[in-house]
C-alpha cells in the first residue's frame, strides 16, 4: 500500500497516511464522453465487487451553490474564477476523495485539477502560479486522457446536448458565435492536454471511436493495474 504522494506540499497540517483505495481519473475535452465512461466503469467495477465512489467538478457541498450563482451572473474575473474552482477541488479532495480512499474505495474522478488548470491557462493564468496552486493535489493512481479531435467534439455536441457558453469559452472569445469560439477554445485546450499527457503520465485513449471500444480499452488498463496491485497473499486463502 503506497503512501500518499502530492504534486507539492500536500496538506502539511494533517497526516493522511496510507490510502488503501485507488484514485482513477478521466480527463479530456468537453463532450468527449467522460461521464458516459464513468457510468460504465462504475457499473462494471461494482459488478466486480469493488466499492466505488465518483466525483466531478463543482460538486463540493461547500462551493457548489456559490459557483453556480457566480457563473450565472458572469461576474467571475479570471483569478477569482481560478481560485473559486481550486476551493471546490480542495474541498472535494479533502472531504470526499481522501476519506473514500482511506476507506478503500475506488474513486472515479470525472476530471481532476488538470482540466481546471488548462482552463485557467487558456484564460491567461500564469502557468507556474497554477501549478504551484495545485501543490496540494494528490497524485492519482491512473489518469486516462480521452483524446478526440475538435471535429469529433463538435459532431457529438451538436447531436447531443448542444454547444454551451462556457464550453465554447465565450467569456474570453472575440468571436460573435459559439461555433468559431468553440473550435478555437477547445483546440487550445487539446494542445494543453497533450502537453500534460507527457508531463503527468496520462494514459492516452483514442476517444474518437464507439463508446464500447473506448470502454474496453479502459477496462483492460484498469484490470491490468488492479492485478499488478493485488497482493500475492490472497492466493493463500
Amino acid at each position, binding site marked *: 500500500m503506497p503512501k500518499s504522494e502530492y504534486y507539492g506540499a500536500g*496538506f502539511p497540517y494533517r497526516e493522511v497516511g496510507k490510502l488503501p483505495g485507488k484514485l482513477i481519473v478521466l480527463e479530456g475535452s468537453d463532450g468527449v464522453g467522460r461521464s458516459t465512461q464513468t457510468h460504465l466503469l462504475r457499473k462494471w467495477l461494482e459488478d466486480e465487487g469493488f466499492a466505488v465512489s465518483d466525483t466531478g467538478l463543482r460538486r463540493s457541498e461547500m462551493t457548489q451553490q456559490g459557483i453556480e450563482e457566480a457563473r450565472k451572473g458572469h461576474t467571475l*474575473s479570471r483569478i477569482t474564477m481560478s*481560485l473559486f474552482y481550486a*476551493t471546490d477541488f480542495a474541498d472535494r479532495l*479533502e472531504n470526499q476523495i481522501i476519506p473514500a480512499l482511506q476507506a478503500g474505495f475506488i474513486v472515479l474522478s470525472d476530471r481532476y485539477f488538470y482540466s481546471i488548470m488548462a482552463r485557467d491557462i487558456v484564460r491567461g493564468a*500564469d502557468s507556474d502560479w497554477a501549478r504551484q496552486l495545485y501543490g496540494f493535489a494528490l497524485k492519482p493512481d491512473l489518469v486516462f486522457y480521452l483524446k478526440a479531435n475538435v471535429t469529433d467534439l463538435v459532431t457529438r455536441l451538436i447531436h447531443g446536448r448542444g454547444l454551451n457558453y462556457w464550453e465554447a469559452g465565450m467569456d474570453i472569445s472575440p468571436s460573435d458565435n459559439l461555433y468559431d469560439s468553440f473550435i478555437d477554445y477547445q483546440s487550445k485546450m487539446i494542445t494543453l492536454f497533450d502537453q500534460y499527457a507527457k508531463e503527468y503520465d496520462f494514459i492516452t485513449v483514442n476517444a474518437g471511436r464507439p463508446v464500447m471500444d473506448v470502454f474496453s480499452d479502459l477496462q483492460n488498463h484498469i484490470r491490468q493495474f488492479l492485478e499488478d496491485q493485488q497482493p500475492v497473499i490472497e492466493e493463500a486463502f
Partner: protein
Amino acid sequence: MLRKNTTPGKLIVVEGIDGSGKSTQIDLLHKWLQTQGRSVYFSEWNSSALVKSTTKLAKKGKLFTPTTFSLLQCTDFADRWENRIFPLLKAGVIVLADRYAFTAFGRDVARGVDREWVRNLYSFALQPDIALYFRVPLDVAVDRITSARAKLKYYEAGMDLDLSESRIESFKLFQERILNEYDLMVNEFNLTVIDGNLSVQAQQRLVREIVKKELEGWKGLPLPESSPYTPIKSGTVHGKGNA
C-alpha cells in the same frame, strides 16, 4: 516577494492581529485623506459579495479545512483585487486596505498551510507602497477583543486547530502563532511597525507623517470637482469593499 506597484495609484495597507487597533487607524486616515481632497477607496478583508454565501455556509457547517479556508479567502481577495483594487490603482486612486495578503500569510500558516504555497497564491497582488503593522503585546490585544465581544466565533478563535477546549485559550494560542508570523514578515515584506501601545492620537500622527511623505509631489486621480470638500458618493470610488 510581491511585485512592485508601478501603477499611478498608491496602495496603503494596515495589518496586525485582532485587537491591534488597525481599523481605528485606517478609518481616521481614510477621513483625513478625504478631507485633503484625495480620491480614496477603502477595501476590507473578506468583504466580497461573490463568496459571501459560500463563506457563510462553510462557517456554519464548519466545513473549512486550512486549505479551503485559505483558498476561499484568497478568492474573496481576488474578486476585490480584479474588480476594485487593481483597476482603481490603475486610475490613480489611493487604495486603503484593512488587512491584505499578509493577513493570509499569518493566519493560514498559523493554521498549518505551507508558507511558500500561500505566498504563491497571492503572488498576483502588488507590494503596498506603505504596509503598516500595528504591533501590540498579545495580552493587550486579547483583552481588547474579549472585553468588546460577547463570544468569540469558532474560526476567529482558531477552534478548528484543536489547540484548546476553551475559546479564549485557543484564541490566545492562535493569535500568538500569527504574531510570530507577522514578526517574520517585517523584514520579508518591509512592514512599517507602529507601536500599538501608543495613544490613538499619537499613532495617527505617525501614520499621517508616513503617508504625507509618500504622497509628497504625487498627484493621483483628481476629484470630479475642484473643491476639496466634495463628498464622494458611495458606490463610485469611495465606499466599502463590498459596495
